[in-house]
């Protein structure tokens, strides 16, 4: 712990408050970061410019499902893609207008609304940041589409990523809304009271996840990424009942900034709180 004289830090802080004059500020930033994230993003050499968000309220259309068939519901998949795209693009446009290099700590969420039928709000929210310096390896922090990078990593993860010589390129995602067939009558009768695998269910889940993950991967390829970190694979059935589920893969595509990716050896600590 730093030794602080009684008239050091608190004195400086109080003097700043005492000297605060209305409207004297020149460049005010807003942010959606926690204190830890804010300080770590600063330490990583970025400064927050502003909170950015984009949203879209979307009516998800209807698609007939066949009772006993495993199938992707492509109209619903398309809806989930399109609405997320709208929210993300609007958020990126706000960041672009601020002259940002990227957006960190993005949260992309869906909330089905209580009013109307099949109406959901898709919202993307994050903090636009600008690098104090361009990357040491040259070039710019923006991605190959000349757009600000986006990342759903927390400020802590972002710091670690930069330390290790990687930079985020963009959030990549893949979605697949899948209808899992109901069992046929004779099949469920045969299985009654038995512990058995239901192969068609297993297969359906495999298919759907594979589609979502391969779509995410192809988005990363378009960004010329080296890899994807922090992938989350969610399955959410929203309001479609038990047999229709969205499989959603999301992660941050990264590129390499330098050749060695060594970070300082972690110190072992024993926290005194839980």
């Amino acid at each position, binding site marked *: 712990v730093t030794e*602080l004289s*009684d*008239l*050091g830090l*608190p*004195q*400086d*802080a*109080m003097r*700043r*408050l005492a*000297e*605060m004059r*209305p*409207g*004297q*500020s020149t*460049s*005010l930033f*807003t942010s*959606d970061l*926690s*204190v*830890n994230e804010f*300080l*770590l993003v*600063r*330490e990583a050499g970025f400064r927050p410019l502003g909170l950015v968000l984009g*949203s*879209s*309220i*979307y*009516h*998800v*259309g209807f698609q007939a499902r066949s009772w006993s068939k495993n199938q992707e519901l492509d*109209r619903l998949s398309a809806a989930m893609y399109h*609405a997320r795209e709208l929210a993300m693009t609007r958020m990126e446009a706000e960041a672009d207008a601020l002259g940002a290099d990227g957006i960190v700590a993005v*949260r992309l*969420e869906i909330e089905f*609304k209580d*009013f*109307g*039928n099949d*109406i959901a*709000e898709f*919202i993307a*929210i994050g903090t636009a940041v600008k690098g104090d310096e361009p990357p040491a390896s040259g070039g710019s922090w923006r991605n190959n589409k000349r757009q600000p990078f986006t990342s759903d990593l*927390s400020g*802590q993860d972002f*710091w670690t990523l930069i*330390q290790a010589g990687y930079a985020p390129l963009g959030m990549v995602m893949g979605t697949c809304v899948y209808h899992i067939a109901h069992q046929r009558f004779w099949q469920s009768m045969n299985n009654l009271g038995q512990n058995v695998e239901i192969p068609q269910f297993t297969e359906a889940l495999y298919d759907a996840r594979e589609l979502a993950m391969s779509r995410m991967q192809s988005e990363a390829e378009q960004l010329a990424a080296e890899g994807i970190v922090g992938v989350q694979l969610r399955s959410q059935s929203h309001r479609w009942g038990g047999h229709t589920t969205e499989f959603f893969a999301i992660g941050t595509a990264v590129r390499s900034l330098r050749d060695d990716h060594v*970070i300082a*050896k972690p*110190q*072992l*600590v*024993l*926290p005194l*709180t*839980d």
Partner: protein
Amino acid sequence: VPDWDGRGLPPVAAARVARAQASGVRTSLLSAPAAASLQSVGLDPVGEVMGCIVEQIGWQGSLGCGATFGFGSGFGSPPVPAIGSRESRWAGMRPYADAIRRGYATALARLQLEVQALGADGVVGITLSVSRLGGAREFVALGTAVRARSTVRPARPFTTDLPGSEVAKLMQAGWVPAAMLVAFDVVIKHDDWATTGQAGSWSNTEVSGYTELTQHARALVRADVEQQAARLGADGFVSSAITLNVSEVEVGEGHRDHLAEVSVTGTAVAHFGAASPVGRHAKRPTERKTQSFTVLPLAGVTPRRGRDL
């Protein structure tokens, strides 16, 4: 009990503050780690402080979007924009929105009064809550007043909803909380033919009217806190919560509107550096960035992101 005219502090609160000042006992709502970390940046707890107001909200204002009946509902007519409570004289819900804003502002102002009466320099870890008491609403702000080991006193005590340990981290890095800010608004949007058509469609489509409603609602409160922070002369604003609730109101036969209640809370922060030996008004102070190092906790501590949208 003498009658209270609503100005200053209620007699009971004034008596509690006087008692706290006379006594050497310091009370606080701080956790042990928060208290310890505040000590490390030269802030000592003075006492817990509260601000409270109970408001009867009887008259919400005329419901409705301000559009006259028939207007904007015919096929092909121009869409009616989403209207915030302060944007038009005719905007419905203005009395309601004003009452809520007054509730938050009064609770925070009374908290400030107690802080000033205690001779403290600021309040940390403020929780601002609203609860319903029958038809009335109670707004309560609770926090811990602190005094700085300093010879300079701020013009007005700082307030923040950040917990003590976060305040300590900020100050170590050269940022001091200036004021807790709240912005609230109610935005109303008339359901026009386009909205109804999109929401009732069988195909995939964005409901542009509702999107406009939520975008506009969030834009209003974001602009509001930014202005509040700029008026203070702060350098930044760190939001802790953005909430949005959309509800449907039926204002007349077959005529529906949508209401969005939206709020932002957070803390305005100001940047400071060490006092410069040449002149009091140093140029932009240099920032002392934190120096983190990587650690591997030996007990299961995983930091999690988890805040309200």
